[in-house]
């Protein structure tokens, strides 16, 4: 079942067209990977799913992005509520310069949860889901910036999960991390599939093939091919896809 459906999406940064007529389903409880060479529009598309592009001056969008049959670009759509439903993890871990606890509690508090006990529970639950509870449970008051990069990224995942999103967007979440931290996060992401719908941008072909169910291959702002990950990597239909995954360009 399709959780998010992108229809005829065109996106411009000023006069420059960064996305051309994108049509793509994002299936529920699956991991969809976006791959493609640098500058082909992967980040741009992932950011249009939670309307982070609205923050970019001069960015205009036409077409539709439907989430459960609701057009997120409709006038009546509440952006803050949308972003609560569609969480995001960034390339560089970006915890707030405050305690681990406050980092996780920030989202729930933003959405009006004030009760200490409920917040406590949410913090623990989110940290557990992000597989970092055991490492930090004894010093939740510690500043999140004192953690290692890999731990910080898992804090950021926990922070995104704390507002109870339905979709989680991850833009190259492991590209700044060492292999061990990367492996931890990959394992964790696979585990999240049963509760969430995930989209992950990655430059790492092995990563895409290890963890994703569907893969979309981008080139110059267009989706060249979209299919089961297995098919994309073993039997791609398009020449460009094959060239890219076999490392001939990009």
């Amino acid at each position, binding site marked *: 079942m399709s959780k998010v459906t992108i229809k005829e999406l065109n996106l411009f940064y000023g006069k420059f067209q960064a996305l051309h007529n994108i049509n793509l389903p994002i299936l529920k409880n699956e991991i969809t990977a976006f791959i493609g060479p640098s500058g082909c529009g992967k980040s741009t598309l992932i950011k249009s799913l*939670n309307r*982070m592009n609205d*923050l970019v*001056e001069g960015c205009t969008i036409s077409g539709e992005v439907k989430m459960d049959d609701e057009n997120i670009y409709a006038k009546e759509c509440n952006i*803050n*509520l*949308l*972003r*609560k439903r569609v*969480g*995001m993890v*960034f390339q*560089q871990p*970006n*915890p*707030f*310069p*405050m305690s681990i606890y406050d980092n996780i509690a*920030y*989202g729930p508090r*933003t*959405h009006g949860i004030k009760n200490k006990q409920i917040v406590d529970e949410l913090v623990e639950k989110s940290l557990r889901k992000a597989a970092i509870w055991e490492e930090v449970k004894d010093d939740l008051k510690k*500043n999140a*910036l*004192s953690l290692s990069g890999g731990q910080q990224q898992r804090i*950021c995942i926990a*922070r*995104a999960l704390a*507002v109870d999103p339905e979709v989680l967007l991850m833009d190259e979440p492991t590209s700044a991390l060492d292999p061990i931290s990367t492996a931890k996060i990959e394992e964790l992401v696979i585990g999240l599939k049963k509760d969430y719908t995930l989209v992950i941008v990655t430059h790492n072909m092995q990563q895409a093939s290890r963890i994703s169910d569907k893969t979309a291959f981008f080139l110059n702002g267009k989706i060249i091919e979209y299919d089961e990950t297995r098919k994309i990597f073993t039997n791609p239909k398009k020449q460009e896809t094959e060239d890219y995954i076999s490392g001939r360009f990009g």
Partner: protein
Amino acid sequence: MSRNYIKGLVYFSALITFGSLFFIISFILIKGLPHLTPALFSFHYTTTNVSLLPALLTTFMVVGLTLIIATPIGVFTGFYLIEYAEKNNKGVELIRIATDTLAAIPSIVYGLFGMLFFVTFLRFQYSLLAGVLTAVIMVLPLIIRATEESLLSVKDSLRQASFSLGAGKLRTIFKIVLPVAMPGILSGVILASGRVVGETAALMYTMGTSTNLPDSLFSSGRTLALHMYVLSSEGQHVNESYATGVVLILTVLIINALSTYLSSRLTKETTK
């Protein structure tokens, strides 16, 4: 060889800087301390006791009132410029040019403007109000600049993280940006108060030099720096003038120490 040369130059420059500071302070202390008598702190000024207490209290009043007016305006302007205004906005460019220009104007020009506008045109007379408003215009660029710079130093990725969690602009600014930017803003505000404490020219033409403690916004008064200037220029009370200098230096030192302490404490809290 040339490395030693440069090293020597560096030490020499440091010595000059530190040496002159040391020299000035000890000169004033030596000249002033012996004359720092209790009479100088009498509540009422007379020509015999030349008390500095009214001037000291007036200084606090002027600094306090100036900051109460200038801080919100300056901080909000800084926030507008960085967080709200569009980047290529012509109005923003204009505000920037205005603040940069204002910051470079000698304070005597502010004094003359204050006299023509507040004292004469608005008929405030030589008054606390005219002095404070002139000082406000004078320190606004400092506060705006400090706010802008500390907001720019807050990484955009933090704002993005906050927005991506569904927080609105106001919440993002107050909960995420402000705490990080606070030490910088605060040191700008303290810099501004230092500027007011040391100001003479701009205040002489707007507050007058009455020796009494102002009892309303519309009465004249003199700050410590102004008091010291008048004492020494009259030539009758040079010793007391040095003693006043001692108190002035102490005030500035205390303000500086306070700012260092506050900003290091705030920085520690946010990045610990």
